[in-house]
């Protein structure tokens, strides 16, 4: 075999070098995935090597091999998958009405009287001006308060402001980023290893928690808007009359009696304001009382309160929050104790001072537009401390956990908008392991079948094709690791299928060489012709398959995306291995050895 690599053309050497590079790339990027999760390796705690893995092997792996790994999908790992929809629309509307209310307060001081603010579905905001000639002065106040609106026309007394589309888009994007950050913050504090949180589409957020099984708790923890605010309870309408007013509004708007959601109550309040039954600066909110019943809790009654329409003190001014046991009034219960920062403390002081002077001397603690409690205030509270009681929704143990979770979400900040779960998937832990086992076993068997089959039909050439096919699988895994792509169960099916079809390229080439041999060519000539003439066919076949894979990629469903990525990478890798790699080996065989094929 001496000199068996001499006199091969330069191009062969180039292709051979490329093949070796591909092999190197494949091995380097695939290996780390099999060495386990670096986060679980024991680490040196002290000294100059602090943070380095203890084991020499782990240290070697970390310093030499790339750090990216193949992510296992939830169906292989077990855990929770939650898809949240962020109500950006309501959030924008809230922002607009808050800005309007501030502008009206300021305008009021300048003697500009306004009434009846309305925000339409397309965010066009209208307000009634008592004196239309003061429109410029009022517009100045509005544009000072929000950059989302631009002054429009005045028709009669109605002054309309039109939204700026680009700025609203920007604002919505900001809300979503903020929501993702808040959710990430909460999950980090919750302590889940390797959570996966990302945006999907314009208003959705995917949260994947591998290994986690407590679906209800996760939903509570992430989906809790935790918008906390404090408002003064107003005495303009006696509390006993509120139930009657609400009933009136329910009949007028045909809202069912059992719908006590904040959205419904908001609608009822709006009607009451329009009918001038309650002051324009006030709104009605409900305290909803629950009682534990079996697995779930049951709503046992509601108490309406008339409170200020806009909150002056909100939860973002909190300094800290923690779950505590309280025995106030000799009733042992769990509370969340909150401490305000300097600014919040001052506002809280102002609020309690005002409330203590005005009947009914109560402030409302409002969580997500529901009144949590409405304690009486007998004098100014200046320490900047407040508590939220947990109610009798559940057993003491669950209460303690709920209090901890609430304290956690209050600490990590409110979500900028309400979120709703639109899709939830839970995969049991043993199911994930079972799926991996099934995937590995079936890929292994499929690989063996294909290898034996190719050997049987094509002999040495079949062996060459098999080597290429295995390199192909290695490359797919390496690419997936390099991109940090997620391997799912359908993805494994994709790999099995790719293995089976990857040899197709070699089948085409080998059939072609056979034909060339039959046509009277020598083994050598047949080899070169076979490769030359099948290139076009291979490219056509792969591009058309790639069209299908590309469409799958655009389809956007995360479960399908994993499969599409596998397929797409597989197509590129197949074209490379089944054509170039087999050519490199085959050319050497045909030029430098006496192995004769297809004769």
């Amino acid at each position: 075999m001496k000199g068996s690599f001499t006199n091969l053309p330069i191009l062969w050497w180039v292709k051979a070098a490329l093949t070796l590079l591909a092999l190197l790339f494949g091995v380097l990027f695939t290996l780390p995935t099999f060495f386990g999760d670096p986060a679980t390796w024991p680490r040196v705690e002290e000294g100059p090597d602090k943070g380095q893995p203890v084991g020499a092997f782990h240290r070697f792996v970390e310093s030499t091999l790339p750090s990216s790994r193949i992510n296992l999908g939830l169906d292989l790992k077990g855990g929770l998958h939650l898809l949240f929809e962020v109500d950006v629309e309501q959030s924008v509307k809230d922002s607009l009405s808050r800005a309007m209310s501030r502008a009206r307060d300021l305008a009021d001081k300048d003697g500009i009287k306004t009434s009846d603010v309305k925000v339409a579905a397309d965010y066009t905001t209208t307000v009634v001006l008592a004196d239309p000639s003061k429109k410029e002065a009022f517009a100045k106040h509005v544009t000072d308060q929000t950059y989302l609106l631009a002054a429009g026309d005045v028709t009669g007394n109605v002054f309309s402001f039109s939204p700026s589309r680009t700025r609203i888009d920007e604002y919505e994007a900001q809300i979503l980023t903020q929501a993702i950050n808040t959710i990430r913050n909460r999950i980090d504090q919750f302590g889940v290893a390797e959570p996966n949180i990302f945006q999907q589409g314009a208003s959705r957020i995917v949260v994947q928690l591998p290994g986690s099984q407590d679906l209800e708790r996760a939903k509570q923890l992430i989906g809790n808007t935790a918008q906390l605010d404090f408002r003064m309870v107003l005495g303009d309408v006696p509390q006993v009359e509120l139930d009657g007013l609400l009933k009136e509004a329910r009949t007028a708007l045909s809202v069912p009696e059992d719908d006590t959601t904040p959205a419904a109550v908001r609608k009822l309040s709006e009607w009451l304001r329009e009918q001038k039954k309650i002051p324009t600066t006030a709104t009605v909110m409900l305290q909803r009382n629950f009682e534990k019943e079996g697995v779930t809790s049951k709503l046992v009654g509601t108490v309406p309160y008339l409170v200020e329409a806009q909150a002056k003190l909100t939860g973002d001014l909190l300094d800290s929050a923690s779950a505590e046991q309280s025995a106030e009034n000799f009733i042992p219960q769990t509370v969340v104790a909150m401490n305000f920062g300097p600014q919040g403390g001052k506002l809280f002081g102002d609020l309690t001072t005002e409330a203590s002077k005005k009947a009914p001397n109560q402030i409302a603690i409002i969580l997500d537009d529901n009144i949590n409690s409405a304690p009486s205030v007998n004098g100014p509270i200046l320490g900047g401390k407040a508590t939220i009681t947990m109610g009798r929704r559940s057993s003491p143990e669950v209460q303690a956990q709920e209090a901890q979770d609430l304290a956690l979400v209050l600490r990590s900040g409110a979500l900028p908008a309400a979120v709703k779960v639109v899709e939830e998937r839970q995969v049991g832990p043993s199911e994930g392991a079972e799926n991996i086992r099934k995937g590995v076993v079936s890929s292994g068997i499929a690989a063996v079948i294909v290898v034996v089959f190719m050997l049987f039909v094509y002999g040495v050439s079949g062996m060459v094709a098999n080597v290429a096919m295995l390199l192909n699988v290695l490359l797919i895994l390496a690419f997936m690791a390099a991109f940090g792509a997620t391997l799912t169960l359908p993805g494994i099916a994709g790999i099995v299928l790719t293995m089976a079809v990857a040899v197709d390229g070699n089948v085409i080439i080998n059939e072609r060489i056979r034909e060339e041999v039959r046509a009277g060519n020598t083994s050598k000539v047949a080899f070169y012709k076979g490769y030359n003439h099948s290139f076009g066919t291979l490219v056509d076949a792969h591009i058309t398959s790639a069209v299908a894979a590309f469409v799958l990629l655009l389809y956007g469903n995360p479960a399908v995306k994993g499969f599409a990525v596998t397929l797409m990478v597989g197509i590129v890798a197949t074209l490379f291995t089944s054509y170039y790699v087999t050519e490199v080996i085959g050319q050497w065989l045909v030029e430098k050895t006496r192995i004769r094929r297809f004769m």
Partner: protein
Amino acid sequence: MKFRFGNVEFFPPHWSFDFMKFKKISIGISVLLSVLSLVIIATKGVNYSIDFLGGAEIALSVKKQGVGRDDLEKVAEDAGVGDVEVTTYGNLGTSADSEFLMRLQHEKDKPDAETAKRVEILVAKVKATLGAENVEVKSVANISGKIGAEEERKGYLALLLACVGILIYIGFRFDPRFAPGAVLCLAHDVLIALGFMTLMGRPFSTASIAAFLTIVGYSINDTVIVYDRIRETQLIHPRQDITTTINNSISQTMNRTVLTASTGLFGLLVLVLLGGGAIEDFALTMLVGILVGTYSSIYVAAPLTIVMEGWLRKMGWEPKDPSLKAKALKDPNFIPPVVLKKRKG
């Protein structure tokens, strides 16, 4: 069939079979199967999974012997959580009825979150009745109706997009005679595979969209190989009539067709038998798709090319003189790879 280890040929050299002789029968079979699939889909309805319908799905593994579908239906009834549909799944390989899917639909006019509560009650009831140690909850999913409708729309759009993309590529790379055959072939394959899955009562999920798009990819791959050979044969024998060209081309690629289809089918068969659960449905869809796809490349795409050629010629279309194209494409030393035998008669 030449049988020598390492050099197996399923079909002898220069083998040529008059495939197109049976084109009337084959088109009949294809039409029959397509119509049958349409009838099945229309009467039985595609068994959409909650991915598209919205609702909740619980996958259970029951370890207790002798618990059947009826028992679980009874438990569901006792739980009083409304309609629950119970099916067995993933049992082709093991033929044991131990894995069940329980499906709940969203109740009208109630928020989707209510369904989550019903799921909780149902799971608690099943565990209480059969014993918690006998029941393993493998997965739970709860999808809102809004998402489902979106997925459905996007899924069909994806299938359509793939077909249009392929139509454009084939029309551009080959010539107009070939494109309709290729696309009709795709529609034929997807329709029959869908008909089969519906007949078997298998759920149609987002994974099925992936399976169908893969069928589209495989089927077109197979068709392109045959088309490629037809085009090449036309360059070598421009005067030969198209039926002979097609017969020879199919015959010459038959070795490859059988080999690739077998490796693909073997791989999928392994997945069907060992994959279980969702993979079983996925692999079964593809298995049917590959079988039909292989058949349709020969008996749907090729005859349609003949039909299209006839129509286009009647409309005054002439293929560009292939010999000119041949000169431009091939080097002067080009030797035809196969010496074709003249057909007798």
